[in-house]
């Protein structure tokens, strides 16, 4: 089957002219037998969008599994992906078919749910293995997308491929950037109407981040919006692109960089995408500015570490908000943007809720970009004392940085100790979930702190461009995992579950009142959304860094999770962490994750007993 996929890839490139002619017929065929994305997403039985819905709530209205019966869950069927590396992301389910993608080599499987997961087709792209070492932090992939009868794959080498959802046949192939410059693909695409949106990874290689819009019919690039650079590259209108209620003005990015540093300035867009159909706005965040040595890039480094709201049709930015100006910690701003309508002071507000790597939970008005609330969601966050919420202050919207914990404050070759959170953030890409029934957000977090020692680095295309030495260790209390039920308007943590290792798996909430997530030791958990009581636990074969999903098949609700340890969690924790402040002579060191789990990708699907 592998060779078939390769043959099709070759055919798609080699016989491009023929392919163009064939497209209208293929489209007519697929639209006759395949649902549109809107139709597929409208059924609660399906999981048709990587984050379940455009709002990225990861809240399912399925309610067969409840807080009362979740303790009876049992594994229903399993599937080995045959790949060892870290398994992030989540499968899709559309009708009778589950689609999932593995880490490099990015094999896509279509599994028949009516036949115990029989493989209907699989597709493995041909990629140069030289892409592997330029993938900072493992060869992960956060999932495929669906639309117009096609499965959209974002490959490791930053190539986007459309496959016929029924046959796996290649429809079109489009390369966005080159891995030879350090640009790679890990993020899940988002399909809106006749467009596919895809970001890029490479913040540790100085890659100038962008979001690309591709035409669903043939993959041609409609627009590309960079995170840094001149206004015509970042698609800003100096008069109408707003930040905290004011126009950004001309050259809003260039003014915040020294010379041409922005060209290797990072701000990559490897996280999650959300969309509001009513406002017709697309939301996502940009990552860290390159290098990790802040002294080498004076200025705010806009628009790294920024929440963007863009018009999906033109790419033009409507509003932006930079959360961490002049980053000194690697607090990428790429985590999911959850669109929730919240009751604030008695009024329904179209809100955007974002749990940032920097340890702050932001609530903004997603129509205007106005800042509504900012709270720490881990009380031990210490690099900032909070965000200036006074609209008349010159520092409005800026975090107040605590110099002691700011690696740019006393120059290079200084070891800044005891910074919380660590570079991997209070939360990394593992998505939170919003349950409208409880009104709470369920957030998997990393309770890890660090020492950070910046020093000068040279840039070479396609080579790591880091410039700081990090030492990471568990935060106060000695645990690293903290799964919380949180109210971002008040900053109140309603309940929390601690774990030895970081919680690196994404959360799922359901109308049955049950929250699901997985742990790095490999435990799949069902938890009472109201109380935090663990209702069910099952040890999967490997650590979980993926996101739990649910679907309904033949009238029965299933819950599925990929296990397969890796990612930043696998790199930072596999060897265990040491505490440099444990005192001289302390042999210490926290237990290693490798004592609990090892590599290997597997899907485990759970259900209640009986038919």
């Amino acid at each position, binding site marked *: 089957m592998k060779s078939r996929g390769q043959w099709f890839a070759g055919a798609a490139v080699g016989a491009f002219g023929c392919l163009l002619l064939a497209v209208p017929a293929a489209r007519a065929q697929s639209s006759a037998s395949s649902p549109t994305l809107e139709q597929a997403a409208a059924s609660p039985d399906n999981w048709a969008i990587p984050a379940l819905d455009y709002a990225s709530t990861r809240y399912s209205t399925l309610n067969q599994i409840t807080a009362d019966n979740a303790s009876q869950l049992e594994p229903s069927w399993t599937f080995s992906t045959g790949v*060892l*590396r*870290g398994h992030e992301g989540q499968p899709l389910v559309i009708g009778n078919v589950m689609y999932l993608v593995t880490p*490099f*080599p990015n094999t896509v499987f279509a599994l028949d749910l009516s036949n115990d997961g029989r493989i209907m087709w699989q597709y493995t792209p041909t990629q140069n*293995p*030289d892409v*592997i*070492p*330029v993938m*900072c*932090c*493992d*060869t992960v992939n956060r999932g495929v997308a669906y639309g117009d009868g096609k499965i959209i794959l974002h490959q490791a080498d930053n190539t986007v491929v459309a496959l016929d959802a029924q046959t796996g046949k290649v429809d079109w192939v489009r390369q966005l950037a080159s891995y030879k410059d350090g640009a790679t693909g890990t993020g899940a695409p988002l399909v809106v109407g006749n467009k596919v949106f895809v970001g890029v990874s490479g913040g*540790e290689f100085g890659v100038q981040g962008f979001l690309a819009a591709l035409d669903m019919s043939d993959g041609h690039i409609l627009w590309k919006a960079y995170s840094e650079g001149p206004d015509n590259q970042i698609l800003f209108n100096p008069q109408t692109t707003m930040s905290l209620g004011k126009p950004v003005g001309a050259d809003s990015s260039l003014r915040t960089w020294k010379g041409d540093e922005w060209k290797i300035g990072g701000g990559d867009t490897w996280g999650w995408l959300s969309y509001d159909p009513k406002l017709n706005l697309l939301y996502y965040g940009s990552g860290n500015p390159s290098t*990790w040595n802040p002294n*080498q890039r004076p200025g705010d480094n806009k628009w790294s570490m920024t929440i963007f709201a863009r018009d999906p049709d033109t790419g033009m930015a409507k509003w932006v908000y930079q959360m961490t100006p002049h980053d000194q910690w690697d607090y990428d701003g790429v985590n999911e943007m959850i669109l929730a309508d919240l009751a604030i002071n008695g009024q329904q507000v179209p809100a955007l809720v974002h749990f940032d790597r920097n340890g702050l939970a932001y609530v903004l008005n997603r129509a205007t970009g106005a800042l509504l609330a900012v709270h720490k969601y881990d009380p031990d966050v210490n690099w900032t004392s909070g965000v200036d919420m006074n609209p008349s202050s010159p520092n409005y919207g800026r975090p107040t940085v605590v110099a002691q914990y700011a690696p740019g404050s006393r120059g290079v070759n200084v*070891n800044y100790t005891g910074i919380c959170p660590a570079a991997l953030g209070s939360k990394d890409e593992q998505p939170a979930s919003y349950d409208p029934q409880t009104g709470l957000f369920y957030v998997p977090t990393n309770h890890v702190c660090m*020492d950070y*020692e910046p*020093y*000068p*680095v*040279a840039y*070479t295309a*396609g*080579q*790591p461009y*880091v*410039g*700081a*030495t*990090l*030492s*990471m260790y568990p935060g106060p209390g000695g645990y690293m995992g903290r799964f919380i039920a949180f109210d971002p308007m008040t900053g109140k943590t309603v309940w929390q579950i601690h774990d030895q290792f970081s919680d690196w798996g994404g959360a799922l909430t359901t109308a049955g009142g049950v929250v699901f997530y997985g742990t790095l030791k490999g435990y799949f958990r069902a938890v009472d959304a109201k109380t935090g009581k663990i209702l069910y636990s099952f040890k999967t074969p490997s650590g979980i860094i993926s996101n739990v999903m649910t679907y309904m098949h033949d009238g029965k609700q299933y819950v599925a999770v990929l296990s397969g*340890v*890796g990612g930043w969690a*696998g*790199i*930072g924790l*596999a*060897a*265990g*962490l*040491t505490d*440099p402040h444990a005192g*001289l002579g302390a*042999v210490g*060191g926290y237990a290693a994750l*490798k004592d609990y789990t090892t*590599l290997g990708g597997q899907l485990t699907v759970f259900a209640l007993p009986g038919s």
Partner: protein
Amino acid sequence: MDVKGHSRIALATIALAFAGAAAAFAAAPGNPKPVKEVGGLWFDKDGAPTYNITKDGTVDWGTFVGYLRYNSICLDCHGPDGSGSSYAPDLTQALQQLSYSQFIADVAGGIKSVNTAQDLVMPSFATNKNVMCFIGEIYSYLRARSTGALGRGRPAKSAPDPKGFDEASYKCLGIPM
């Protein structure tokens, strides 16, 4: 005062020449006893970089610089303190069987092992000055880790930086001070 700068660039050049030869053979490093110091970096009797850790635990400057550079560039795959990760091998084990010439060949030339069982690829760092300007220091650090002479984490005490080290480093990296 540029002597050290020249020697640092020369070292990086020699490293590349080694990689070009690529005559790889597994050989355990010999006696790590330091006999000679150049610009803060110590060498054993065979001319391979080594560590010099005094009884009170003070780590020589070269090994300390190796700690800093390793835990920035190499950590992303090989994990903190050379201890390995889910992505790349434990270097505290690997270095026990790796001579300096083989080490340079691997770092500058890269390693590729892609088959049905695994997909391990180490890139070539030959053009990466952040690595090649400090290749001796990184080897010295990992050598100390592999023999157990140095534990995990940031060395608590290190010898002072030798005069001219910063100038030489910036010059080798090719960036203004």
